């Protein structure tokens, strides 16, 4: 093998190989970085919104000065709900039911500190919550409560936690609370009717959502409590929850909602922003891949030229009794070595620079946990093997062409 390598390495162009190495390094680092960023962003997206999946959004009607003056809330009529249901990509539409009685929430951190506030509760039909709720609820608290229950499961807007962590906790020197331990802090809820009758419930936080800006409780609890603590009058919904058959909402639904003058609750630009970030990551990965592909073909051409330059030697070796496979192996090992080295270095560079990006992500989102960089190495190994195999195949075919 030593002699064969000594013979066949003649005419190797260092410039061409250097060109390949540089271009492939640039492409490789971009691809590996992009794939890791994509994975982390995806994980963050999933962890941020498990309760009400990407396939659901909450809409309201915009409030105008006229509404303010008349004091009439803008509710959804039956025909408007039907129109939404008929929209092709809408799978189901659920109404929000709001508490019509006074509710006070008391947040007690310890014996000395805490705060309380008046608020109201919301409910959507249980099927919009239940599936994902069951999957993420570690405490096995059922999404179910009646007016006579002592505990009530709650879903809080994520904004509340952010408000606490970045506002109250920061200013009062209290420790920040992560989503995972939020369930350990029960919230006291006091429901009161107009005659002064009241009942105390223990609210247990079972999840957070970006999509609803009010506290969500089980449908049955609000229905029964409205009857018990108010006159039981049914009001038209001011908000609707919509789900789609697709994995997530496409822009056509968002455009339709815009057209109708409805507003997506929560972070209204979230869907578009999320799609934009995904598209951006795809473009980044795509650019990296184009670089890598260019480099791949650079090495192919380089190898083909080298083999062509050594054509006579290869032909003589073949006539001496060397098999195509054995001759090709010299160039294949060369290509394998270069591919492996380039992807190894690309993975090292990506591993070194990625933490800078993850620090940036972590400062933007407290729930961002820097994932293991395994994906960088896994993708690097896969692409190195893929590139090397294809280079190996090209070499074999080229040598075989000479050894006819």
């Amino acid at each position, binding site marked *: 093998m030593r*002699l*064969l390598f*000594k*013979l066949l390495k*003649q005419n190797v162009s260092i410039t061409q190989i250097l060109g390949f190495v540089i271009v492939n390094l640039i492409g490789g680092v971009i691809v590996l970085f992009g794939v890791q960023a994509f994975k982390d962003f995806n994980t963050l997206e999933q962890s941020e919104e498990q309760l009400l999946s990407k396939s659901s959004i909450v809409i309201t009607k915009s409030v105008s000065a006229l509404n303010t003056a008349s004091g009439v809330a803008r509710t959804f009529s039956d025909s408007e709900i039907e129109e939404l249901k008929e929209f092709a990509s809408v799978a189901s539409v659920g109404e929000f039911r709001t508490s019509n009685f006074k509710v006070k929430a008391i947040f007690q951190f310890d014996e000395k500190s805490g705060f309380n506030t008046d608020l109201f509760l919301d409910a959507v039909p249980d099927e919009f919550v239940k599936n994902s709720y069951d999957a993420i609820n570690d405490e096995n608290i059922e999404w179910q409560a009646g007016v006579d229950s002592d505990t009530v499961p709650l879903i809080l807007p994520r904004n509340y936690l952010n408000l606490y962590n970045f506002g109250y906790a920061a200013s009062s020197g209290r420790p920040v609370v992560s989503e995972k331990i939020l369930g350990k802090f029960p919230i006291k809820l006091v429901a009161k009717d107009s005659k002064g009758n009241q009942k105390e419930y223990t609210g247990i936080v079972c999840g957070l959502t970006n999509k609803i800006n009010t506290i969500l409780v089980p449908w049955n609890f609000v229905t029964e409590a409205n009857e018990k603590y108010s006159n039981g009058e049914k009001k038209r919904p001011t908000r609707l929850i919509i789900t789609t058959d697709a994995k997530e909402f496409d822009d056509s639904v968002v455009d339709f909602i815009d057209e109708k003058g409805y507003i997506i609750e929560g972070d209204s630009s979230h869907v578009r922003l999320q799609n934009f970030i995904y598209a951006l990551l795809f473009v980044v990965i795509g650019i990296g891949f184009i670089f890598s592909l260019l480099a791949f073909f650079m090495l192919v051409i380089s190898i083909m030229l080298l083999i062509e330059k050594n054509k006579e*030697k290869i032909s*003589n*070796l*073949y*006539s*001496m*009794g*060397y*098999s*195509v496979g054995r001759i090709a192996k010299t160039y294949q090992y060369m290509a394998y070595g270069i591919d492996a080295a380039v992807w190894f270095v690309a993975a090292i560079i990506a591993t070194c620079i990625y933490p800078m990006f993850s620090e940036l992500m972590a400062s933007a989102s407290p729930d961002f946990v820097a994932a293991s960089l395994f994906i960088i190495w896994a993708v690097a190994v896969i692409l190195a093997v893929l590139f090397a195999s294809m280079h190996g195949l090209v070499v074999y075919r080229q040598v075989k062409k000479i050894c006819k």
Partner: protein
Amino acid sequence: MIQTIKLSKVNLKVFVDMPPSGPVSEVWNSDVAFNRGGSYLIEASSGRGKSSLCSFLYGLRNDYVGEISFVGDDGREFTGDKCDYVKIRQQSMSMMFQEHRLFPELSSVDNVMLKSQLTGFTKETEVREMLTRLGLKDRLDTLCGKMSYGQQQRVAFVRALCQPCDFIFLDEPISHLDEGNARIMSEMLRERQQKDGVGVIVTSIGYRLPYDYDTVLKL
């Protein structure tokens, strides 16, 4: 192991296309058999297809008509177009090419070892001894590209001996050698033939390798 190489009405395609139907000789368009252990001289003037015949037998070219077949020691016969020539070139047939086919960027020892390491048939010390015997002692580590044609011819000859085989083809092996080196070459060839019982097929355009040929064929 190949015991016999048979040629049955073999002729160059290019000859066949010539009117009336190409030349007829003791080899072309005839039935010839080369047996293991035998020694054959094929004589012809230039342009009669000596090197082409070697290439046909060695499986490097197939632009011929007729049939070339090999008979194994088990009596089975297989034709040239159904052979694994890589295996045959490693184990059964050795060729000293007229144009040598050496690698100018390798030394004479490396050129021979490149062949020998395919099968591990000859050690480097033996290679050095053989080259020394042919007067190349001070050229052992010289690049072949810097050696004379006659020196290269001797290296090519040693290379042909450094592999296991049933037949050795020597295509004009001494065209650039003096009598002394030609005599040493034939001694080395005879030793090899006596040791392993190989068949020897030599071509010549007039200047013969001195050897006890069993058969002389005119091409």
